[in-house]
Every structure is written in C-alpha cells, then in structure tokens.
C-alpha cells in the first residue's frame, strides 16, 4: 500500500514499501568516545508511521545514540573503532544516508546567508519542496540574515531544511528546545503529518509533556541501553516513576555528610 498525504499544496510522498514489512531496526549498537563506552548492545525497532521518544538525563547518551545511528562516530582513534559495532537496517536492508534526516540540537548555519538562501541549499536535492507553505506555520522572516535569528527561529529554519529532505527516518534531537508555545504546537502538527505519511520519527526532549503528547512509545535510556519502554497507557506511570527517581536522586545527593 502506498501512502500519500496531501496537505494544501504540499505532498509528502512516502516510499513504495509495504506497511507490513517496513521496519526500522537497530541491532546490538555499541558506541562511545575515547575509552568511554556510552551505548552497550542497544536494540531498538520501530514500525512505519510511529513517533518514538528517547528520554534520559543529561549525559545518558541520547545524542550519542543519534550520532551513532547516523553513523557519525567514525573515528580516528583505534579504541573507538573497536567499540563501534552493530547495524541499523530499514526494511531488512542496511540503512542509507538519504533515508535518514537528522536535526541536531545545535545546527550549523553558514554565516551571512538569509533564511531563504539557507533553504535553497535543500532545494538542490528537492526542488519542488514548498517552503512557503511550511513557513505559514513558522512565520519566519526568510529575507533576513540567519545571524540575526533567535534560538527558536534558527531551530525552525533548520527543521524546515530537515523536512525538505523527505527522509523515511527523522532523528530530531531536542526539537522543542528554545521554541515558544506556538512553535511547540506547530511541531506537534508537523509530527502528526509525518506520522500520517508513514515516516519514522525518533525524538528527544527534556520536557516530558512534549514527549507524552506526541510519542507512541517512550524509551528510557540508562546505562547505555533502553532499560525500560513505556507505551501510551503507561505514561502516567512514567511520570510518577520519573518524579520518584529524580527525588530519590536529589535526596541521596543532599544527604548530610
């Protein structure tokens, strides 16, 4: 079955893969920096048309997880090369770069370019992508230099570039970071559209409601692997568990002596 999504003038066209067999899998991913192993034998799978959240404290390895999935920990030192193992497949085949789009927490922007000129870089690969339509959501001053944009505006323009790639798998590292309430709602809207179009979205956030509002499942990253997975029905329990864990952690730290 081919899924098509028409939204106004924009068409997000998923690939021709079947819904049944289309699956994103990460097998035994091990990765780290230098002598430190951050991810240990991590396994993950996700069917088409789902949004998955990755939760964990600072330094748990969320960004390393995304970097590793994208294949970025390619390393100079031998010890890293020895540690980096596992594989990532999409529909039983090794994933290709063009099948993944990755929004980094702190995206790079070329200096002295306007928002429109930045987006034109993405038009090289996808000339028909309608940035004007998406900018109705974000209302960015695309004729202004990106150097003058606020943190939230930069996040929005980077997100538009990611959408233009029309990849099957989207890795969004803290997309809600630094954006206003209206933009949070706009991102919810986009995520819904992506889900309907059969895309696979993995996202991180430190704000629990942004994950519980959007994700089909939330994975708690701890000690280098997903030590607990929460389905929608478990979200209230997740909130309680998290709160309890954080309180215990703080109390332990603040014990006198």
């Amino acid at each position: 079955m081919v899924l098509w999504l028409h939204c106004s003038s924009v068409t997000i066209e998923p690939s021709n893969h079947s819904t049944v067999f289309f699956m994103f899998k990460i097998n035994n991913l091990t990765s780290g920096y230098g002598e430190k192993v951050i991810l240990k034998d991590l396994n993950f799978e996700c069917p088409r048309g789902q949004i998955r959240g990755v939760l964990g404290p600072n330094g748990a390895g969320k960004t390393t997880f995304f970097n590793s999935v994208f294949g970025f920990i390619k390393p100079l030192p031998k010890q890293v090369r020895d540690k980096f193992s596992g594989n990532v497949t999409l529909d039983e085949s090794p994933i290709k770069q063009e099948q993944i789009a990755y929004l980094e927490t702190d995206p790079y922007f070329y200096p002295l370019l306007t928002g429109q000129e930045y987006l034109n870089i993405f038009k090289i690969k996808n000339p028909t992508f309608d940035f004007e339509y998406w900018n109705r959501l974000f209302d960015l001053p695309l004729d202004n230099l990106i150097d003058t944009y606020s943190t939230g505006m930069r996040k929005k323009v980077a997100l538009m570039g990611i959408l233009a790639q029309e990849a099957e798998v989207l890795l969004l590292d803290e997309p809600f970071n630094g954006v206003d309430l209206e933009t949070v709602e706009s991102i919810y809207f986009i995520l819904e559209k992506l889900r309907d179009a059969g895309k696979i979205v993995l996202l991180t956030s430190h704000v629990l409601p942004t994950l519980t509002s959007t994700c089909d499942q939330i994975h708690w990253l701890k000690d280098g692997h997903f030590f607990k997975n929460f389905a929608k029905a478990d979200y209230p329990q997740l909130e309680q568990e998290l709160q309890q864990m954080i309180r215990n952690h703080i109390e332990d730290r603040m014990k006198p002596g």
Partner: protein
Amino acid sequence: MIPVWIKMRWQQIFRTLKSVGLLLLLIFIPLAGIGVLGLLKTLQNWHFGYFVLLIVGVITSIHLSRGDGRFLQLHFAKAEIFKILLLEYSLIAIPFYLIAFAAFAEWQVIPFTQIAIAALTLIPFREMGHHSFQTKIPVDWIPIRLFEWRFAFRKFGAVLLLTWLIGFLGVRFVGAPLVSTLLFTVFLTAVFEYLENKELFLGRYHHRFLRDKIAPHLKFLNLLFLPQYLIFFIFHGEYWYIGLAAAVMANMILTFAILKKYATWRPRTKRSHISTQVALFSLFCIVPFLFPVALIWLVVFYRKATGRVDYFFPKG
C-alpha cells in the same frame, strides 16, 4: 547544484565585502594590485612546483579549518560533497592560476594543483566534538580572566606549542621569531570567533571594559614570548628591528581580534565570523606599504567595538 552553490558563496563574499566598506576597498584594491605585482617579480625566480605547494598549502588549511564539515556530511552524499569541495577549491585556486600564468607562463601548475585538490577533498573533516584528552591539558597556569587562552590551549594546544617552539628551534634563522610569533597569534585569534554569553559579559562589564580586556591579553602574549625575544636579541642583536616588528605585529593582530570580537558581539550568538578580516588585517601588518591601513583599521574597530559595547551596556 553547482549554480546554487556558487550563488550562495557569492552572496556571502558580497556581504563580507560590504561589511569591509567601500572606502577601505578603494584603498585596499590598488594596494593589493601593487602587492600582486611585487609577488610576480619574486615568483619569477621560483620553480613552479613551489607555487603548487603554496596553493595546496593554503587550500589544505582552509579544508582542515572549515566548520561546515558536519553540515555537509549530514545533508549530502559523499559524491556530492566531493563535487562541492572540488568546485570551491578550484574557484579559490583560479586567482593563483592567473598569477602563476603571469609569473611562469607555465600551464602545468593547473593539472598538478587540481590533482592535489581532488586528493585533498578525500581527507576526512576534522571532528569538532569534545575529546576527553582536552580536559587533561593543563591550563591552570593561565589566569581565568584570559579564558580565551585556556580555550585555545585545550582546542589546539599542540599547534600553539609547536609554533612557539619554532622560535627556539629556529633560533639560528633571523626570520624564526617573526614566523613563530605571527603564526602563534594568528592561530590564537581563532578562539576570538566564539562569543561569551550576555551573563558572562555583563558580569565583567564596566566603563573601561575594552581597555581592561585587551591589556592582560597583550601582557600575557608578551610574557610568553619574552624568552624568545631575549634569545633573538642575544643571537641576532644587529637585526633587533625584526624582533621588534614581530612583537608589534603580534600585539596588533591580537588587539584587532579582540576589537573585532566585540565590534560584532550580539546576545544569543555563539560565533562571529571574524577570521577573514583577521587574515586581511594580518596581511596589512606584514606587507609594509599596507601597514597604515592596519593602523586605520585598529582605530575604526576600536570605535566600532566601543560603540557596540556601549549600545548593549550603556554607561551609568
């Protein structure tokens, strides 16, 4: 793809030139023309192979210092990155080819350089992330108010140490301290691209902010190079003016980098792209007849930096 990329780069160059200002360009272009003529005269005695090495050296340094490596890897396939890099480096090489052709009238510079450029594009981009060894580099001997120096030693301490050592290892050569101090200072200025946040700025701000910012940096630079200056004067006392010129130029370049940083500082911005202008300024310092332009720039940017600081943090 190629037209879009050329257009994008042209827009960046145009805006950079616009920020330099028409008056300075009118001064700079004829002076640069004279500089090129002088260069042509020197090059006539060179073997063209050295010129190929020079071009490849310049392009290698650009390749290793480019900040968009990760962006390109994220959004383009390997073949596309190869095309982009080959295009950019070939365009950068064109002015050199014109100079080479005028100096040697030999076309071999082009194929040799192009082959080297093609090979260069295959060198992986430098990983910009944090490495654990960076925290192991001892920087406690650097006063905390010179946090840019601590950052520089953590970021590329080995390069700084090596350039500093050039002055000692090459003490027999008159030009060694000049090369050492200038290279060291130019590398050091790279960290002035990074802007501190408003809170840190505000915490240290007072009405003599710029002067109090620059003075300790210059003191520290001169203290670090004092042994070199002394050894140079012992070995090459008759060429004292070269040592003095090296010290003056290094101080001027560092002052310019600090002024440029604060002339472009803005809240919520992590990085200000000052490297092109610092490179131009260094050129103005090194080429004797461009030296007055460097002095004018110092004054212009001191005023700009003062204006910018006072705008964000008005007195009183």
